[in-house]
């Protein structure tokens, strides 16, 4: 059996998950994601007006704010789905905004889950999960399948592995989408209003999955309107409005004692319903 050199090296590293390839060393105390003076314009509309943010490893950062405040845009800038107009974004020390940096390599390290799931409808749940590891990382099909089953089991959908997205509920689709993002072994996960498109009774299954991830120590940036989740799971709460970070602190602190009048107004509007 003469395998390729890559195959051989994989056989040697038996214990650790086999697709750990270029896990970058992060020095203690160094942020995983650093955003410096980020501006983003859509035509004449300035969606982001100078964001500065450092996200430490294993931190769960919850981003809230009124719609149109730039939360999603900021998230999409982190993995380069939107190009920054000005400013810099570093993910594990690599500059996302730099023309020379390999965005695809950076994106392997940044998982993203979308409001509209965006599962690949022509592929079964498990194929959705294995596609990127096989095609992007060159993982063998058996290895990818094994890992995918593990992940689907983790999100509680092992028995739905062979179902097509059209036959899954919204909550199930979103959990498959989470498994799909996890399959690339990301160092940070971005969640863009992932429960907003779900029927109310399906929200909790997705939030529970996310809570599980947070407990395991995944670094997460979560844009959401679920204040309960923010309070319970978030390590840090960021309130954004009109393209700037207005408030940034411990969730409990920001909820109970918002400093800025805009934050106070926002919370008074939302929390009055709870």
């Amino acid at each position: 059996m003469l395998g390729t050199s890559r195959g051989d090296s994989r056989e040697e590293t038996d214990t650790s998950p086999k697709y750990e390839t270029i896990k970058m060393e992060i020095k203690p105390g160094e942020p995983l994601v650093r955003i410096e003076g980020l501006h983003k314009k859509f035509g004449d509309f300035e969606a982001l007006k100078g964001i500065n943010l450092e996200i430490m490893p294993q931190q769960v950062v919850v981003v809230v704010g009124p719609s149109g405040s730039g939360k999603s845009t900021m998230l999409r800038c982190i993995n380069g789905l939107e190009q920054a107009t000005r400013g810099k974004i570093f993910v594990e020390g690599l500059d996302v905004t730099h023309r020379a940096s390999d965005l695809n390599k950076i994106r392997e390290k940044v998982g993203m889950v979308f409001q509209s799931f965006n599962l690949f409808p022509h592929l079964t749940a498990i194929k959705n999960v294995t596609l990127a590891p096989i095609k992007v990382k060159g993982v063998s099909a058996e290895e990818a399948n094994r890992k995918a089953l593990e992940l689907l089991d983790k999100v509680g959908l092992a028995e739905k592995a062979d179902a097509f997205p059209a036959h899954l509920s919204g909550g199930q689709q979103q959990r498959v989408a989470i498994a799909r993002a996890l399959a690339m072994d990301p160092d940070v996960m971005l969640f863009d209003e992932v429960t907003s498109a779900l029927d109310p009774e399906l929200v909790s299954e997705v939030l529970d999955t996310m809570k599980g991830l947070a407990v395991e120590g995944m670094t997460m940036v979560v844009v959401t309107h679920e204040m309960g989740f923010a309070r319970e799971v978030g390590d840090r709460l960021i309130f954004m409005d009109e393209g700037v970070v207005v408030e940034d602190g411990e969730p409990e602190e920001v909820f109970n004692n918002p400093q800025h009048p805009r934050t106070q107004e926002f919370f008074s509007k939302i929390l009055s319903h709870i």
Partner: protein
Amino acid sequence: MSEEALELRDGEPVSEFEEKNISGWAKASLIMGILGLTFLPIVGGVLAIVFARIAKKQILHTDFEGDGLATAGQTLGIVSLVLAALVLFYFLMQHKLKDFVADFFNWDTIKTAWPEVGRAFLTTLEVALVSEVCILITGLIVAMLRISRFRTFRWITAIYIDIIRGLPLILLIFIIYFGLSYLGLNFTRFQAGVVSLTVCYAAYEAEIFRAGIESIHKGQVEASRSLGMTYLQSMRYVVLPQAIRRVIPPLSNEFIMLTKDTALVAFIGLSEAFLVGKEAMGRYANVTPLVGVALFFLLVTIPAMQGVRYLERRLARGD
């Protein structure tokens, strides 16, 4: 015991033992219908229908029965009238019909000319299939360039598509065939036919591919790119498989049209079914060879259309 029961009821007949009061008109209608089919052609049929109408009215407004009989009479009447009309038509048209058969379905010509056009039709199919493969590949490449990031590619392909779509196919076939030979490229007629059809049809199919690609939600590209796929990987594994599924019905229709348009390469002298049939028509002095060509085309195009319909249904279910 049952006899006893019957006797008990004898004095006072219960409705179910009553003799049915069947309409005489219905009986007459049935008899006329039978006569109409046998001894009294037209007259019997007409009377059967008329009697049946009367019987049905009577049954509707009184307590007469026999609706089934009336219906049977009426049906027989109609059948006998239709048969009579057909027989009449046959006698009247026998002379012209003979001429028609001699011209369109001449048995002697069929025996010799249809195998000949059948073989030529294989060439037609060969041109169509080879062209289709070239068209699919070219069309997809053109479509990808049409939506490319690079403006130059977008412009070139847009101009190509618009020029081709704005010209008659027959003109393009002539220009390409004779243009190639003036350029000193010695293509066989077959190759020239394939090149012409490819150049023409690729423009149309490129637009179909583009529509398919653009119909895929941009979230699909975002999801695949955010997993680290390159643009081409995202196209190949995520967008195109979905886009192509969606455009299979229009593409299949294009293929049917292409098969038919293959006949146009007869004009640059390729011996395909139409040309061979046309020549045979001259030789045999009747149109039977071309009828054969038509039948061969239908033999392929009708099942192909059924196949497209089947595909459409299956795809609709899949979504």
